[in-house]
Protein backbone atom coordinates (compact mmCIF):
# COMPACT_ATOMS: atom_id res chain seq x y z
CA UNK A 1 0.00 0.00 0.00
CA UNK A 2 2.81 2.40 1.02
CA UNK A 3 4.81 1.43 -2.07
CA UNK A 4 1.76 2.15 -4.28
CA UNK A 5 1.29 5.64 -2.74
CA UNK A 6 4.98 6.45 -3.16
CA UNK A 7 4.83 5.46 -6.81
CA UNK A 8 1.74 7.62 -7.36
CA UNK A 9 3.46 10.61 -5.68
CA UNK A 10 6.48 10.12 -7.93
CA UNK A 11 4.19 10.12 -10.98
CA UNK A 12 2.60 13.37 -9.79
CA UNK A 13 6.04 14.97 -9.37
CA UNK A 14 7.08 13.82 -12.84
CA UNK A 15 3.86 15.29 -14.25
CA UNK A 16 4.43 18.57 -12.44
CA UNK A 17 8.02 18.78 -13.66
CA UNK A 18 6.85 18.01 -17.21
CA UNK A 19 4.31 20.86 -17.07
CA UNK A 20 6.94 23.27 -15.70
CA UNK A 21 9.35 22.27 -18.49
CA UNK A 22 6.65 22.73 -21.17
CA UNK A 23 5.70 26.15 -19.82
CA UNK A 24 9.38 27.14 -19.65
CA UNK A 25 9.93 26.04 -23.27
CA UNK A 26 6.86 28.01 -24.43
CA UNK A 27 8.14 31.07 -22.53
CA UNK A 28 11.60 30.79 -24.11
CA UNK A 29 10.08 30.43 -27.60
CA UNK A 30 7.87 33.47 -26.94
CA UNK A 31 10.90 35.49 -25.78
CA UNK A 32 12.85 34.37 -28.84
CA UNK A 33 10.10 35.54 -31.19
CA UNK A 34 9.86 38.90 -29.38
CA UNK A 35 13.62 39.42 -29.57
CA UNK A 36 13.61 38.59 -33.29
CA UNK A 37 10.90 41.16 -33.90
CA UNK A 38 13.13 43.85 -32.34
CA UNK A 39 15.87 43.53 -34.99
CA UNK A 40 14.09 45.39 -37.84
CA UNK A 41 13.50 48.35 -35.50
CA UNK A 42 17.24 48.88 -35.31
CA UNK A 43 17.58 48.58 -39.08
CA UNK A 44 14.76 51.06 -39.63
CA UNK A 45 16.66 53.76 -37.76
CA UNK A 46 19.34 53.73 -40.44
CA UNK A 47 17.11 56.03 -42.53
CA UNK A 48 18.31 58.86 -40.31
CA UNK A 49 21.91 57.95 -40.96
CA UNK A 50 21.22 57.74 -44.67
CA UNK A 51 19.76 61.26 -44.60
CA UNK A 52 22.78 62.42 -42.60
CA UNK A 53 25.16 60.87 -45.13
CA UNK A 54 23.31 62.37 -48.11
CA UNK A 55 23.23 65.79 -46.45
CA UNK A 56 26.93 65.61 -45.56
CA UNK A 57 27.94 64.64 -49.08
CA UNK A 58 26.21 67.77 -50.44
CA UNK A 59 27.96 70.08 -47.97
CA UNK A 60 30.03 72.78 -49.70
CA UNK A 61 33.56 72.71 -48.31
CA UNK A 62 36.14 75.49 -48.23
CA UNK A 63 38.23 73.70 -50.85
CA UNK A 64 38.13 74.87 -54.46
CA UNK A 65 39.89 72.44 -56.76
CA UNK A 66 39.88 74.42 -60.02
CA UNK A 67 39.11 78.06 -59.30
CA UNK A 68 37.48 80.15 -56.59
CA UNK A 69 34.60 80.30 -55.82
CA UNK A 70 33.94 76.86 -57.35
CA UNK A 71 34.05 75.16 -53.96
CA UNK A 72 33.79 71.38 -53.86
CA UNK A 73 31.17 69.36 -52.11
CA UNK A 74 32.28 66.65 -49.68
CA UNK A 75 31.43 64.06 -52.34
CA UNK A 76 33.79 65.82 -54.76
CA UNK A 77 36.42 66.01 -52.02
CA UNK A 78 36.24 62.23 -51.64
CA UNK A 79 37.12 61.83 -55.31
CA UNK A 80 39.82 64.52 -55.08
CA UNK A 81 41.30 62.87 -51.99
CA UNK A 82 41.54 59.52 -53.76
CA UNK A 83 43.24 61.28 -56.71
CA UNK A 84 45.59 63.02 -54.19
CA UNK A 85 44.64 66.47 -55.50
CA UNK A 86 45.25 69.79 -53.77
CA UNK A 87 42.93 72.73 -53.19
CA UNK A 88 43.65 76.13 -54.75
CA UNK A 89 44.71 77.40 -51.29
CA UNK A 90 47.46 74.76 -51.21
CA UNK A 91 45.86 72.42 -48.68
CA UNK A 92 45.61 68.72 -49.44
CA UNK A 93 42.10 67.61 -50.43
CA UNK A 94 42.41 64.73 -47.93
CA UNK A 95 43.25 67.11 -45.07
CA UNK A 96 40.28 69.31 -45.93
CA UNK A 97 38.02 66.27 -46.26
CA UNK A 98 39.16 64.91 -42.91
CA UNK A 99 38.61 68.23 -41.16
CA UNK A 100 35.22 68.88 -42.74
CA UNK A 101 33.80 65.41 -42.09
CA UNK A 102 35.12 65.41 -38.54
CA UNK A 103 33.49 68.76 -37.80
CA UNK A 104 30.21 67.75 -39.45
CA UNK A 105 30.09 64.51 -37.48
CA UNK A 106 31.09 66.11 -34.19
CA UNK A 107 28.49 68.85 -34.59
CA UNK A 108 25.76 66.42 -35.55
CA UNK A 109 26.72 64.29 -32.56
CA UNK A 110 25.62 67.06 -30.25
CA UNK A 111 22.13 66.56 -31.61
CA UNK A 112 22.19 63.09 -30.09
CA UNK A 113 23.69 63.98 -26.74
CA UNK A 114 20.66 62.59 -24.92
CA UNK A 115 20.83 59.28 -26.73
CA UNK A 116 22.82 56.25 -25.59
CA UNK A 117 25.11 56.43 -28.62
CA UNK A 118 28.71 56.04 -27.53
CA UNK A 119 30.71 55.83 -30.75
CA UNK A 120 30.65 56.50 -34.47
CA UNK A 121 32.64 55.59 -37.53
CA UNK A 122 32.74 57.10 -41.01
CA UNK A 123 34.71 55.41 -43.74
CA UNK A 124 35.09 55.63 -47.48
CA UNK A 125 36.71 53.13 -49.84
CA UNK A 126 37.48 53.19 -53.51
CA UNK A 127 36.93 50.03 -55.52
CA UNK A 128 37.05 49.20 -59.18
CA UNK A 129 33.85 47.84 -60.67
CA UNK A 130 33.50 44.08 -60.23
CA UNK A 131 36.57 44.01 -58.04
CA UNK A 132 36.77 43.06 -54.38
CA UNK A 133 40.02 44.96 -53.85
CA UNK A 134 39.36 48.26 -52.08
CA UNK A 135 41.51 51.25 -51.18
CA UNK A 136 40.74 53.15 -48.00
CA UNK A 137 40.25 56.88 -48.56
CA UNK A 138 39.25 58.08 -45.12
CA UNK A 139 38.28 56.69 -41.71
CA UNK A 140 36.97 58.91 -38.95
CA UNK A 141 35.94 57.31 -35.70
CA UNK A 142 35.34 58.11 -32.08
CA UNK A 143 34.82 55.72 -29.20
CA UNK A 144 34.80 51.96 -29.21
CA UNK A 145 32.46 50.62 -31.85
CA UNK A 146 31.42 47.31 -30.34
CA UNK A 147 27.79 46.65 -31.10
CA UNK A 148 26.57 48.29 -34.28
CA UNK A 149 23.28 49.95 -33.59
CA UNK A 150 22.61 51.80 -36.78
CA UNK A 151 24.39 51.95 -40.10
CA UNK A 152 23.90 53.31 -43.58
CA UNK A 153 25.99 53.38 -46.71
CA UNK A 154 25.93 54.71 -50.21
CA UNK A 155 28.28 55.17 -53.15
CA UNK A 156 29.29 57.72 -55.76
CA UNK A 157 30.68 57.12 -59.22
CA UNK A 158 34.37 57.79 -59.64
CA UNK A 159 35.35 56.48 -63.05
CA UNK A 160 36.52 53.76 -63.59
CA UNK A 161 35.34 52.62 -60.15
CA UNK A 162 33.11 53.70 -57.33
CA UNK A 163 33.59 55.22 -53.88
CA UNK A 164 31.60 53.49 -51.18
CA UNK A 165 31.06 55.39 -47.96
CA UNK A 166 29.37 54.37 -44.76
CA UNK A 167 28.52 55.75 -41.36
CA UNK A 168 27.71 53.77 -38.27
CA UNK A 169 26.62 54.64 -34.78
CA UNK A 170 27.33 52.34 -31.91
CA UNK A 171 26.29 52.06 -28.29
Amino acid at each position, binding site marked *: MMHKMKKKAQEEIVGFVAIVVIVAVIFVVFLGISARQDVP*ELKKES*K*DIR*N*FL*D*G*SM*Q*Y*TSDCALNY*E*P*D*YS*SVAELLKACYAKKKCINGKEACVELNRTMK*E*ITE*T*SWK*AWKDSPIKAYKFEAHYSLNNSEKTTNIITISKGECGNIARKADNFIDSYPGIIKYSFQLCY
Partner: protein
Amino acid sequence: MSFCRVNCSKGQLKIQEMAFALLAIIIFLVISGLFYFVFKASSLKEDVGEQRENEAREIARRIANTPEFSWSTSECSNCIDLDKLMALKDKESYKGFWNLEHLRIEVIYPVKNGECLKVNYPECSSITLVNKSIAPLSSAFVSLCRQEFKKQGYIKCELGKIYAGGKKVE
Protein backbone atom coordinates in the same frame (compact mmCIF):
# COMPACT_ATOMS: atom_id res chain seq x y z
CA MET B 1 -11.92 14.98 -0.81
CA SER B 2 -13.33 14.53 2.66
CA PHE B 3 -16.96 14.78 1.50
CA CYS B 4 -16.32 11.83 -0.80
CA ARG B 5 -14.52 9.66 1.72
CA VAL B 6 -17.55 7.51 2.44
CA ASN B 7 -20.02 7.65 -0.42
CA CYS B 8 -18.18 8.57 -3.59
CA SER B 9 -17.25 5.86 -6.02
CA LYS B 10 -13.84 5.69 -7.71
CA GLY B 11 -15.38 7.10 -10.92
CA GLN B 12 -16.68 10.18 -9.12
CA LEU B 13 -13.25 10.75 -7.65
CA LYS B 14 -11.71 10.60 -11.10
CA ILE B 15 -14.28 13.09 -12.39
CA GLN B 16 -13.49 15.44 -9.51
CA GLU B 17 -9.79 15.14 -10.25
CA MET B 18 -10.45 15.92 -13.89
CA ALA B 19 -12.59 18.93 -12.93
CA PHE B 20 -9.86 20.29 -10.68
CA ALA B 21 -7.26 19.71 -13.38
CA LEU B 22 -9.44 21.53 -15.93
CA LEU B 23 -10.00 24.37 -13.46
CA ALA B 24 -6.24 24.66 -12.89
CA ILE B 25 -5.60 24.72 -16.66
CA ILE B 26 -8.27 27.40 -17.16
CA ILE B 27 -6.81 29.54 -14.36
CA PHE B 28 -3.35 29.11 -15.87
CA LEU B 29 -4.63 30.10 -19.33
CA VAL B 30 -6.46 33.13 -17.94
CA ILE B 31 -3.35 34.34 -16.08
CA SER B 32 -1.21 33.74 -19.19
CA GLY B 33 -3.77 35.60 -21.30
CA LEU B 34 -3.72 38.52 -18.89
CA PHE B 35 0.08 38.68 -19.01
CA TYR B 36 -0.04 38.50 -22.81
CA PHE B 37 -2.57 41.33 -23.10
CA VAL B 38 -0.69 43.53 -20.65
CA PHE B 39 2.50 42.94 -22.63
CA LYS B 40 0.72 43.48 -25.94
CA ALA B 41 -0.93 46.68 -24.71
CA SER B 42 2.42 48.16 -23.68
CA SER B 43 4.03 47.23 -27.00
CA LEU B 44 0.97 48.63 -28.79
CA LYS B 45 1.61 52.00 -27.13
CA GLU B 46 5.20 51.86 -28.37
CA ASP B 47 3.95 50.93 -31.86
CA VAL B 48 1.57 53.89 -31.89
CA GLY B 49 4.38 56.23 -30.83
CA GLU B 50 6.63 54.80 -33.50
CA GLN B 51 3.92 55.04 -36.11
CA ARG B 52 3.41 58.71 -35.27
CA GLU B 53 7.14 59.32 -35.49
CA ASN B 54 7.30 57.58 -38.87
CA GLU B 55 4.42 59.68 -40.13
CA ALA B 56 6.08 62.88 -38.94
CA ARG B 57 9.37 61.78 -40.50
CA GLU B 58 7.56 61.07 -43.73
CA ILE B 59 5.92 64.50 -43.50
CA ALA B 60 9.38 66.05 -43.05
CA ARG B 61 10.70 64.17 -46.07
CA ARG B 62 7.71 65.08 -48.21
CA ILE B 63 7.84 68.72 -47.18
CA ALA B 64 11.50 68.82 -48.20
CA ASN B 65 10.43 67.70 -51.68
CA THR B 66 7.59 70.19 -52.20
CA PRO B 67 8.13 72.90 -54.85
CA GLU B 68 8.03 75.55 -52.11
CA PHE B 69 11.04 73.95 -50.39
CA SER B 70 13.01 72.03 -52.98
CA TRP B 71 16.25 73.18 -54.52
CA SER B 72 15.60 73.24 -58.25
CA THR B 73 18.41 71.08 -59.54
CA SER B 74 18.48 67.43 -60.52
CA GLU B 75 21.86 66.96 -58.78
CA CYS B 76 20.33 67.28 -55.34
CA SER B 77 16.86 65.85 -54.98
CA ASN B 78 16.69 66.18 -51.18
CA CYS B 79 18.11 69.68 -50.91
CA ILE B 80 16.06 72.54 -49.49
CA ASP B 81 16.27 76.04 -50.90
CA LEU B 82 16.94 78.33 -47.92
CA ASP B 83 16.36 81.50 -49.98
CA LYS B 84 12.85 80.27 -50.86
CA LEU B 85 12.14 79.56 -47.20
CA MET B 86 13.18 83.05 -46.18
CA ALA B 87 10.81 84.43 -48.82
CA LEU B 88 8.02 82.13 -47.54
CA LYS B 89 8.59 82.97 -43.89
CA ASP B 90 6.62 86.21 -43.88
CA LYS B 91 4.10 85.35 -46.59
CA GLU B 92 0.60 85.72 -45.17
CA SER B 93 -0.89 83.48 -47.90
CA TYR B 94 1.14 80.51 -46.59
CA LYS B 95 -0.09 80.79 -43.00
CA GLY B 96 -1.91 77.51 -42.32
CA PHE B 97 -0.79 76.00 -45.63
CA TRP B 98 1.23 73.18 -44.03
CA ASN B 99 -1.47 71.92 -41.65
CA LEU B 100 1.17 71.35 -38.97
CA GLU B 101 1.62 72.51 -35.42
CA HIS B 102 5.33 73.12 -35.81
CA LEU B 103 7.66 73.42 -38.80
CA ARG B 104 11.23 74.57 -38.44
CA ILE B 105 14.44 74.28 -40.42
CA GLU B 106 17.71 74.48 -38.57
CA VAL B 107 21.30 74.74 -39.79
CA ILE B 108 23.38 72.08 -37.98
CA TYR B 109 26.76 72.71 -39.61
CA PRO B 110 28.37 75.22 -39.68
CA VAL B 111 27.27 76.23 -36.20
CA LYS B 112 25.22 79.43 -36.18
CA ASN B 113 22.82 81.00 -33.73
CA GLY B 114 19.48 82.75 -33.71
CA GLU B 115 16.26 82.87 -35.67
CA CYS B 116 16.67 84.04 -39.26
CA LEU B 117 15.42 87.51 -40.04
CA LYS B 118 15.98 89.65 -43.10
CA VAL B 119 18.65 91.60 -41.24
CA ASN B 120 20.79 88.64 -40.15
CA TYR B 121 20.22 86.12 -42.98
CA PRO B 122 22.18 83.94 -43.78
CA GLU B 123 24.24 84.25 -40.57
CA CYS B 124 21.50 82.61 -38.50
CA SER B 125 20.55 79.09 -37.56
CA SER B 126 16.79 78.52 -37.80
CA ILE B 127 13.79 79.41 -39.90
CA THR B 128 10.50 78.77 -38.11
CA LEU B 129 7.57 78.60 -40.51
CA VAL B 130 4.87 77.28 -38.15
CA ASN B 131 4.94 77.58 -34.39
CA LYS B 132 1.41 77.02 -33.11
CA SER B 133 2.38 74.73 -30.23
CA ILE B 134 5.17 72.53 -28.96
CA ALA B 135 4.02 69.31 -30.60
CA PRO B 136 6.01 66.06 -30.54
CA LEU B 137 8.63 66.75 -33.16
CA SER B 138 10.19 64.52 -35.73
CA SER B 139 13.33 65.47 -37.55
CA ALA B 140 15.27 64.52 -40.64
CA PHE B 141 18.70 65.57 -41.89
CA VAL B 142 18.58 67.65 -45.06
CA SER B 143 20.92 69.66 -47.19
CA LEU B 144 20.22 73.39 -47.08
CA CYS B 145 21.35 75.23 -50.20
CA ARG B 146 21.38 78.92 -50.96
CA GLN B 147 23.02 81.50 -53.17
CA GLU B 148 26.14 82.92 -51.52
CA PHE B 149 26.99 86.39 -52.73
CA LYS B 150 30.56 86.54 -51.40
CA LYS B 151 33.45 86.03 -53.85
CA GLN B 152 31.48 86.65 -57.07
CA GLY B 153 28.67 84.39 -55.93
CA TYR B 154 28.36 80.62 -55.73
CA ILE B 155 25.98 77.96 -54.43
CA LYS B 156 26.58 77.04 -50.82
CA CYS B 157 25.04 73.93 -49.28
CA GLU B 158 25.04 73.35 -45.53
CA LEU B 159 23.89 70.49 -43.33
CA GLY B 160 20.61 71.02 -41.55
CA LYS B 161 17.58 69.42 -40.04
CA ILE B 162 13.90 69.82 -40.70
CA TYR B 163 11.62 69.57 -37.66
CA ALA B 164 7.94 68.86 -38.16
CA GLY B 165 5.21 68.17 -35.63
CA GLY B 166 1.56 67.39 -36.13
CA LYS B 167 -1.32 67.54 -33.71
CA LYS B 168 -0.88 65.44 -30.58
CA VAL B 169 -3.18 62.40 -30.61
CA GLU B 170 -4.49 61.54 -27.15
